[in-house]
């Protein structure tokens, strides 16, 4: 267990904003930029913005979650870190579980904080903002899980980062449908379903990503 703590500490040092290998605050700025551009594009109709703004925040969050994927796995795969870990009895799944936690911590909390100014830019009501925040809290672990699995699958490919972006989008659609769908319903069922999808994806992602890393060794 102390090994996992060591692993997690390294992954956090790598991925947290200001860290050595992550995307830093880039996803955050990208997310805010989308929220800022949308009113320019559709015009200052407060009613329209209030009605569609929540969905825009969801799309922006999904796209922002793609940005950190490029360096999420490929750097360590090239450097042979997973080989050395495997020799020490640390399975690829274990390493990926640690990376999933670090990845989520590196992008999601900041994104949730940035949702407040984004909601203000789009003129969302307090009620809608609350639903968006809860939905993102439930949905971002799933987005992180999908991102990790795809990053591991594409890590050994040339130009894998662009492909990763394209692969994440269809896989993230269920989260988007139920997460953004919760905005149109008075009850919390959409958010709960999003959380359920997220949990399932978080359980599967380390296994899929671990298998992908092992497969990359054979190529």
């Amino acid at each position: 267990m102390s090994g996992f703590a060591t692993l997690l500490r390294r992954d956090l040092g790598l991925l947290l904003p200001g860290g050595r290998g992550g995307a830093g605050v880039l996803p955050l700025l990208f997310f805010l930029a989308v929220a800022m551009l949308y009113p320019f594009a559709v015009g200052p109709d407060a009613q329209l913005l209030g009605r569609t703004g929540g969905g825009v925040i969801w799309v922006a969050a999904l796209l922002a979650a793609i940005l950190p994927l490029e360096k999420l796995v490929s750097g360590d795969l090239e450097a042979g870190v997973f080989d050395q870990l495997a020799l020490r009895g640390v399975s690829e799944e274990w390493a990926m579980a640690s990376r999933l936690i670090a990845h989520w911590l590196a992008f999601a909390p900041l994104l949730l904080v940035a949702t407040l100014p984004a909601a203000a830019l789009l003129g969302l009501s307090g009620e809608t903002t609350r639903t968006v925040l809860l939905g993102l809290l439930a949905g971002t672990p799933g987005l992180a899980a999908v991102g990790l699995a795809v990053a591991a699958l594409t890590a050994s490919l040339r130009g894998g980062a662009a492909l990763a972006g394209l692969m994440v989008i269809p896989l993230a659609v269920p989260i988007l449908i139920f997460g953004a769908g919760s905005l149109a319903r008075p009850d919390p069922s959409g958010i709960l379903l999003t959380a359920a999808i997220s949990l399932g994806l978080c359980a599967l992602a380390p296994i899929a990503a671990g298998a992908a890393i092992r497969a990359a060794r054979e190529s």
Partner: protein
Amino acid sequence: MDLACRRGERLLFRGLSFSCEPGAALQVAGANGIGKSSLIRILAGLLRPFAGQVESEGAMGLVDERLALDANLPLGQALGFWESLDGCRDAGRAFEVLQLDPLLDVPVRYLSTGQKKRAALARLLNRNCPIWLLDEPLNGLDTQAMKSVEALVALHCGRGGIAVVASHQPMALPDPQKIDLARFSA
């Protein structure tokens, strides 16, 4: 054992069998591309053999061309991650033997090829494991460092450790068992 290895469509070697007792050194020789690194990776359990099986007792340590150290961290910290994973308390001696002390504050990306190789060897020493798998351990090292690596391997084997060395350079090993992969190439 009868190991065979296939990479892509090519069968690299087959019918290879050997065993190592504690204290033994094994030298794997052969031309470039004949499968020395693949053999080392098979022994490490990182690559599945096309046929045959590998049995080993005891932990293994690997030094290959991939450094597995964070390029942006100072060397001391980058090695520190592996030391804490390996539960190593006394890392200083390995740094002294391999003359890494003055480099511990230098970010890994600024190190030369030979210095990086010495860092990887320091990690191996601090791992304190009985089986050493060395893939081209002399690459990039100067004559003095080569000598100390040879001495380290001799010391390791003298203490009952096993060393498997794949190298195209001549390397002085204590009483080595030699495998010429060319004889097993398919």
